């Protein structure tokens, strides 16, 4: 199994989008691709416009973070980066406990990602390849949980957390998100296609227990999809705002909560706020630049449902 080279994993993901027609999946996918016509100049112009629109706010975060507030709010506004980036970053770092916030975010997003990968792969495998009573109903139940917004349960969740002594602690934002319906669905779709029954049978004939099969047959096969799910989960956990904002406080925030509080102070210095925004976004942008192809593939693979 090639674990380190992400480019080799991309083709493996191709068959996943068509879960309902296991045999035909690959063929249909190719047919669709064959339909493509060449894009004309208008296509490129439109894409450049949309692309600039997508990038500009991020670029402007950098610009605003590298001037002092007065210059940022001047007319005409600055369009090129200035020279105060470092001092603004330092000010943001000192004002909002960003150092602690970043460490907290790494812990939270890291724990959630590892747990999600493990639990979702197990559940996805069970739903994809194992036979058991109530499988269909339970899978529907998993999907149905996607439609319940977190808003509906935050009030008692807050009370429960303070009751068990997790109020304001990282546990309160980690545990509710340890495993998600999207991940279960995503892994199931992938394993339906990627894991042949013959492999499982062979392991069974060799006398392997079910967990042994998971460990030495399922996990290696699932690895490319796990990588993509891991990145998607990390992005989501890193960016999560609503529940962390309610559950955590100023002394022990994640990076997003710290950012929200930085801007909620009475007279926030805009360029320092932007410096904080930059700090919170850079790690993810880096992930995107390196693994953009895999993330795009993952979203497209998870998208099409039967």
């Amino acid at each position: 199994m090639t674990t380190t080279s992400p480019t080799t994993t991309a083709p493996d993901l191709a068959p996943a989008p068509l879960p309902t027609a296991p045999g035909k999946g690959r063929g249909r996918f190719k047919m669709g691709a064959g339909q493509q016509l060449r894009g004309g100049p208008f296509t490129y112009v439109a894409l450049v416009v949309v692309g600039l629109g997508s990038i500009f706010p991020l670029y402007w975060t950098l610009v605003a973070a590298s001037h002092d507030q007065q210059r940022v709010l001047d007319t005409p506004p600055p369009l090129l980066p200035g020279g105060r980036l470092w001092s603004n970053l330092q000010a943001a770092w000192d004002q909002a406990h960003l150092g602690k916030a970043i460490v907290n975010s790494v812990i939270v997003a890291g724990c959630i990602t590892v747990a999600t990968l493990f639990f979702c792969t197990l559940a996805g495998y069970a739903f994809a390849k194992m036979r058991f009573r109530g499988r269909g109903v339970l899978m529907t139940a998993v999907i149905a949980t996607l439609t319940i917004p977190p808003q509906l349960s935050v009030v008692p969740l807050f009370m429960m957390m303070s009751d068990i002594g997790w109020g304001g602690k990282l546990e309160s934002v980690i545990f509710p998100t340890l495993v998600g319906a999207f991940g279960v669905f995503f892994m199931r779709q992938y394993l339906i296609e990627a894991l042949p029954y013959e492999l499982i049978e062979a392991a069974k004939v060799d006398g392997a227990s079910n967990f042994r099969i998971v460990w030495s047959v399922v996990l290696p096969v699932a690895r490319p999809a796990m990588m993509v799910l891991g990145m998607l989960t990390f992005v989501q956990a890193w960016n999560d705002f609503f529940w962390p904002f309610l559950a955590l406080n100023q002394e022990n925030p994640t990076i997003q909560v710290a950012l929200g509080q930085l801007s909620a102070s009475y007279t926030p210095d805009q360029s320092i706020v932007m410096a904080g925004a930059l700090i919170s976004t850079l790690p993810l942008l880096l992930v995107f630049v390196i693994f953009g192809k895999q993330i795009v593939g993952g979203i497209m693979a998870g998208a099409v449902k039967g």
Partner: protein
Amino acid sequence: MATTTPARGAYTPPPGGTGAASNGRGTWRSRLWRFDDKASPYAYIAPFFLIFGAFGLYPLLYTGWIALHRVEMTSLDQSQWVGWDNFAKILQDSEFWTAVTNTFVIGVISTVPQLLVALGLAHLLNYKLRASTFWRTVILTPYATSVATAALVFALVFRADGGILNWVLHFFGAGNTDWGNGEWTSKIAISVIIIWRWTGYNALIYLAAMQAVPTDLYEAASIDGASRWQQFRKVTIPSLRPTILFTIVISTIGSMQLFGEPLLLQGGTLGSIGGSEHQYETLSIYLFNYGWKLGHLGPAAAVAWAMLVLLLLIALINWIVGRFMRKSAA
């Protein structure tokens, strides 16, 4: 699946056989084997249901209980039965209805343009392109940006004095717009943040669905003399209908959750009441304000249940519209 049976059967000894000692061991092993086979799938899916039960379903029901009680942030362990008072309180509050309207309006003016643009964008991305992965990644970068960062940047862009948007618009002869304080302009500003963050993501979902449309449909259409636009309307759109419905559902649920954008558009105390005139106060902001700023968790829980009712209503409308569309299509 049938092929597993012989393998498993091989371990099942005949029930009343001779040689009890070795057979007993066989039964034990076989039982263990069967148990492993029967229990494993449940064990694998159990974590999901345990976590969801503890932190999703149980709190959801508990919300209903709190909604009928008086619970204050300052004394979380005390509760007092008040019946339907909390519901009466929020239903008589004009701010609640403002929040309902705002959530609905912002939901519509952010979802409709977003999905239309995403559809067009997916169509463009479906052409054979140079550097296609590059374009896909670029339009997805807003998805990597957190709601906090996006809201804070756009807060600067939409600023009344010194905002970059007003500066751009003055070239077209527009006067200074006070985006955040206007009834409609503030809603538009919030919608722009949402549209910016989610259009690329939805475009990729549509693109994936477009690539799954079989070619023969297009071939048949072009033999019948259908133009490209007609092909898009008569072949692509109908094939994408389930996906479009899916994205509408997801966006509807998403608009019910709008929180970071309105909270941070103007920031400070204005954010937690959704603007000086509550002009962009959403239901989530209203819930947050009642429960976390004012400290009354009972009414906040009642708001949560009101949201659940609204979601069910929307689901019902969605279902009826979907049925109607299918009927008229057939």
